[in-house]
């Protein structure tokens, strides 16, 4: 039940009446009239309990895009329902309109269209649906709040997918599947084909040539069916914002581009998100459903404000992957975290696997290092130089352990990681 402003106004006007007839009975009469109005309204208002809700529409939306969710309101009551309806979503779901007016005749259904533009990644659950049906006099209303469950998952935006065509073209050049039919680089035997002008004579397969009576060359291609294991660090260092985006989101973007590229290149891609325990895992996905699986696994991930447990991460990794693979660790080059956590365990890891560390650097540090003029700017510059020196030292130390390090600002990390992968592939180091 809810009252309206009209009832308050009427009570206000009713205050004048006792001035003309000063008696308790006058006041009781005014109250009686108000009460009667309320009772009539409550009795004649459309029945909100007789409503049934059905939902349909999008369940996934890429961050920054708009999802449409329909709420179908079915009136099972015997009277027409004129009401205001609010479909309640969390603020970060960006649901509009906030409130709609519905008019549902008895036994019929009406559709309410909601548009959701989530402002953050993750699952957004519909909270409840509230209906307020005001009576014919407009003095009182029936109100009911009842859940109509629905979840919209806001997926990572994957803005670096615009780099994918360029990287795939580069990949095709490597594999020889390029339209220009350049002989593929690599170490793995692919197929035999007829010699064309320009082919390297060293690649002529004499035995096949003798058999066919025509000059036949061997073609090569980079190794396929290698395994790439991506590890997302969701610990405290991933919460830091670079620009206005958490470092974790930049890492995810880079992981998605690498995943898309590597799966096209015929490699098996797995994903693990870890801080002090396994947050999510994508393993054994086929080439076609890898990207959706990764995107769905990443959507609800949030940075945890904990120190990442490097020992746990390495042991989980070693337990899950027996054969040699490329381990891509998406983390931050934080001196304390790496030196105390990962560095002592690196030999164990590099002994079996090829390790690559991808870190997002903060352009703000670069800006600070450029600071000149006043004292504050110069001290900023000094602190930034110190930070960069530490980062350089750490990078050098990691490279000394045979680790590939990709350190790039947020907008370049994804293509830089893809390039590093392609370089490894071209060199046959996978």
């Amino acid at each position: 039940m809810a009252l309206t402003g009209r009832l308050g106004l009427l009570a206000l006007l009713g205050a004048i009446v006792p001035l003309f007839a000063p008696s308790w009975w006058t006041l009781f009469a005014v109250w009686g009239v108000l009460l009667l109005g309320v009772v009539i309204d409550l009795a004649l208002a459309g029945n909100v309990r007789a409503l049934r809700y059905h939902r349909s529409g999008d369940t996934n939306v890429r961050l920054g895009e708009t999802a449409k969710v329909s709420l179908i309101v079915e009136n099972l009551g015997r009277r027409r329902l004129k009401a205001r309806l609010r479909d309640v979503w969390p603020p970060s779901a960006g649901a509009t309109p906030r409130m709609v007016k519905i008019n549902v005749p008895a036994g019929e259904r009406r559709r309410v269209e909601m548009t959701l533009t989530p402002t953050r990644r993750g699952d957004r659950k519909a909270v409840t649906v509230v209906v307020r049906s005001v009576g014919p006099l407009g003095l009182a209303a029936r109100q009911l709040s009842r859940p109509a469950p629905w979840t919209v998952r806001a997926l990572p935006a994957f803005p670096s997918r615009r780099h994918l065509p360029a990287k795939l073209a580069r990949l095709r050049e490597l594999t020889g599947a390029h339209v220009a039919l350049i002989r593929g680089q690599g170490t793995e035997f692919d197929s035999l084909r007829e010699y064309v002008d320009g082919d390297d004579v060293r690649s002529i397969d004499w035995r096949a040539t003798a058999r066919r009576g025509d000059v036949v060359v061997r073609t090569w291609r980079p190794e396929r069916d290698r395994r790439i294991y991506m590890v997302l660090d969701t610990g405290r260092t991933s919460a830091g914002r670079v620009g206005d985006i958490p470092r974790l989101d930049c890492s995810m973007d880079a992981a998605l581009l690498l995943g898309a590229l590597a799966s096209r290149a015929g490699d098996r891609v797995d994903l693990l998100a870890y801080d002090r325990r396994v947050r999510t895992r994508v393993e054994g996905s086929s080439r076609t459903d890898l990207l959706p699986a990764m995107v769905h696994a990443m959507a609800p991930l949030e940075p945890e404000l904990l120190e990442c447990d490097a020992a746990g991460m390495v042991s989980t990794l070693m337990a899950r992957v027996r054969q040699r693979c490329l381990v891509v660790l998406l983390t931050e080059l934080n001196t304390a975290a790496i030196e105390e956590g990962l560095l002592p365990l690196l030999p164990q890891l590099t002994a079996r696997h090829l390790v690559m560390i991808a870190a997002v650097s903060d352009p703000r540090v670069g800006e600070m290092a450029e600071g000149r003029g006043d004292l504050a700017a110069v001290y900023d510059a000094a602190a930034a130089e110190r930070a960069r020196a530490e980062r350089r030292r750490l990078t050098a130390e990691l490279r000394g352990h045979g680790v590939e390090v990709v350190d790039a600002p947020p907008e370049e990390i994804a293509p830089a990681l893809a390039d590093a992968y392609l370089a490894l592939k071209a060199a046959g180091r996978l």
Partner: protein
Amino acid sequence: MVTAAPPRGEQSAGPSARQVAGRRWRSARGVVAAILAMAVVALILAALRPSTSAEALDPESPKQDGSRALAEILRQHGTRVTVARNAGDALGAAGPGTVMVVTRTERLTEKDLQELSGVRADLLLVRPTSFALDALAPQVRRGGPTYEEKDSPDCSLQAATLAGRVAFHESETYDVAGSAAACYRTEYDAARLVQVRNGTGTVTVLGSTAPLTNRRLTEEGNAALAMNLAGAGTSVVWLVPDLPKEGAGAGQKSLGDLLPFGVKLLILELLVAVLLVALWRARRLGPVVAEALPVVVRSAETVEGRARLYRAGRARDRASDALRSGARERLVPLLGLPRSSAQDPSAAQEIVTAVARRTAYDETYVGAALYGPEPLDDAGLIALTDVLDDLERQVRQS
């Protein structure tokens, strides 16, 4: 490192604090203006109200609005002047042949007035309140205030005719029924001075305090009028009541008794209306949804914190070291030397020579810039960054 900080760069998402404040101001400015206008009106009214000091018409006060001058003159003429501070004392001192001057009647309680009405003496009421007038001179009714400055008596009362023109300044006027002396009439026939008979004696009502005050006593015939009225008997009892004690006015009606029943019902109904409006506003269309917000911490926060620590500690040594080693790191690849030499002290001479060869500076200057002691003051530190930038630029361009 990880702490919650206010979100940045989200102004585009919702209205900023300034916009919200502006909207609230626009919606509230009508109310604020109304309140201000009421305050201004109240202040103006308060300023216009004639101030009455605590000692007004006090026969012992030598102040402008006191009446010591008149009392002294009366004494010099042989009239005994008794000052009474409450009605009881005044009644005790009064008797036949006495003129009782009753001033500041707003301080008299209902009981005082009742007692005074039975006094066996002539009364001179100076600008009485309507309560006092009703109790002591029921046949006289209040007219309204007049502001005409002067007037002539124009009546048969000897005290007035002898005094002639009198300066009343602001005065109350009175209507009187039946035969009575009504002097100093206005054009609407309302009198400023009225004398009626009342059983045992006369009751004189004077509409203005001016003829009795120290300040106005010398104007026109004020002194004469005051002397004639107050000094009519053998003695004067001058009643200047003090403020009545707490509870002395008991028996008077409370505010609740004075309000009509209808108004009380109106107030009750207004409360009900307010309650209903509150219930209307209190019921939301759906709940407030709370959700966990992500932690917002800038990645460069530690670097900024370190910069502030350097500044707070005036750590010029560490700051200059960091700046120099950063500059060397950038210079070394330009000079074609191995990267490791940037932090290698044994390679210092080699770097300095190479830099000096490619810039306009000599080795001493370059050595001081790249490996020198810490700057002596803040200006030196700022100058060092400029020198390092200059070296780097020259090497780059050579």
